[in-house]
């Protein structure tokens, strides 16, 4: 990236590291020019001018159908959708389910911080049981959805569904690479990335990293 773009993500957010590693992989694979990055309207939207890659915002929960539309119109593109856990597993769940069912050859990156960040910290489909948020003040009485695991039965054998974390850069790069290769082979790929959110976790410094590592007990990293 040649020009300095002032970052609008909160201090300590996982998005910058995720986006930079995605960029690194695209560069290594020499796919930057062919790549199109679609963004959900949530914290993901702040990445709209972040990478040296064609990027556009879509609507909240609608990244998946938008990117499959783009890919069907331009099959030799690398069509990537980036969304949060709300955009993927709440309002976007239906679109995602059907893209997986049809094995659409796109890549969906789900940045999972277990909370609705941009609207101020409400409960999300991946909020933990007991997690306190603005709309679960007594503690979430629901249980989190494990996205990749949930969608596995719908997915084609050659599709790639995996989970990693913002503090596992090596694994993240490996999975992002595999996801893109899966797209190139004509199949669906999804990488869920557990991400830092000190703003809404109300954590500082090392607490944030511990919080993320604890999430791995529930959201197990690995290939699903």
């Amino acid at each position, binding site marked *: 990236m040649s020009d300095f773009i002032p970052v*609008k993500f*909160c201090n300590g957010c996982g998005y910058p590291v995720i986006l930079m590693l995605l960029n690194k992989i695209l560069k290594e694979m020499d796919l930057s020019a062919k790549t199109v990055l679609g963004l959900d309207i949530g*914290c993901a*939207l702040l990445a709209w001018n972040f990478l040296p890659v064609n990027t556009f915002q879509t609507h909240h929960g609608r990244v998946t159908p938008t990117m499959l539309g783009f890919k069907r119109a331009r099959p030799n593109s690398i069509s990537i959708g980036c969304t949060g856990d709300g955009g993927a597993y709440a309002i976007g769940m239906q679109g995602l389910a059907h893209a997986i069912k049809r094995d659409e050859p796109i890549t969906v990156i789900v940045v999972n911080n277990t909370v609705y*960040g*941009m609207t101020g910290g409400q409960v999300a489909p991946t909020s933990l049981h007991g997690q306190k948020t603005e709309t679960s003040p007594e503690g979430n009485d629901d249980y989190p959805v494990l996205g990749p695991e949930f969608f596995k039965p719908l997915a084609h054998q050659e599709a790639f569904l995996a989970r990693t974390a913002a503090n596992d850069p090596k694994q993240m790069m490996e999975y992002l690479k595999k996801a893109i290769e899966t797209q190139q082979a004509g199949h669906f790929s999804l990488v869920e990335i557990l991400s830092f959110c000190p703003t809404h976790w109300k954590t500082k410094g090392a607490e944030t990293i511990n919080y993320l590592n604890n999430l791995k007990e529930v959201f197990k990293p690995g290939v699903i």
Partner: protein
Amino acid sequence: MILKVLLAGDGGQGVQTMADLICRTAFAKNLEVTHIPNYGLEQRGGASLSFIQISDDKIGYPKFSQADLLVILSNQGRERSLQYQIDSTKIIDVKELKNEIEDKKINLQNLNIFFLVLIVKIFEEKNIFTAADLYVQAEEKLSKKSNWSEIREIIKINIK
């Protein structure tokens, strides 16, 4: 009397706290007051603007195009508040006060209180309310904060 006050700084500098204290104090003095913050996409780090109107009579529309008093706490605040300045706007700008802030050893955390005191000096001249009035509200709202003793000192020095 109606006074249009615009506070402009960065998110995290305590601009909304300043606005809240001004409004509480005005309310306690039986004045009419309205406050509307700006709000955007970022949860952190964007500009934080507060539009405050204080009056003897009921206030209608909360926003205004020309500030009577503009308080600038950061560069971003300055940029975002340019459009609200006219020739008669009284401006309190952090860049003019760098020396005073250093001399008085004002902690960054308490910068907003330092500015609040400057604002109240102007309010005293205009018979809106005094530092003593502000102190009552500050104590109610902020006495449990870790930096309360510093806040208290900054305000108390200015009570006549």
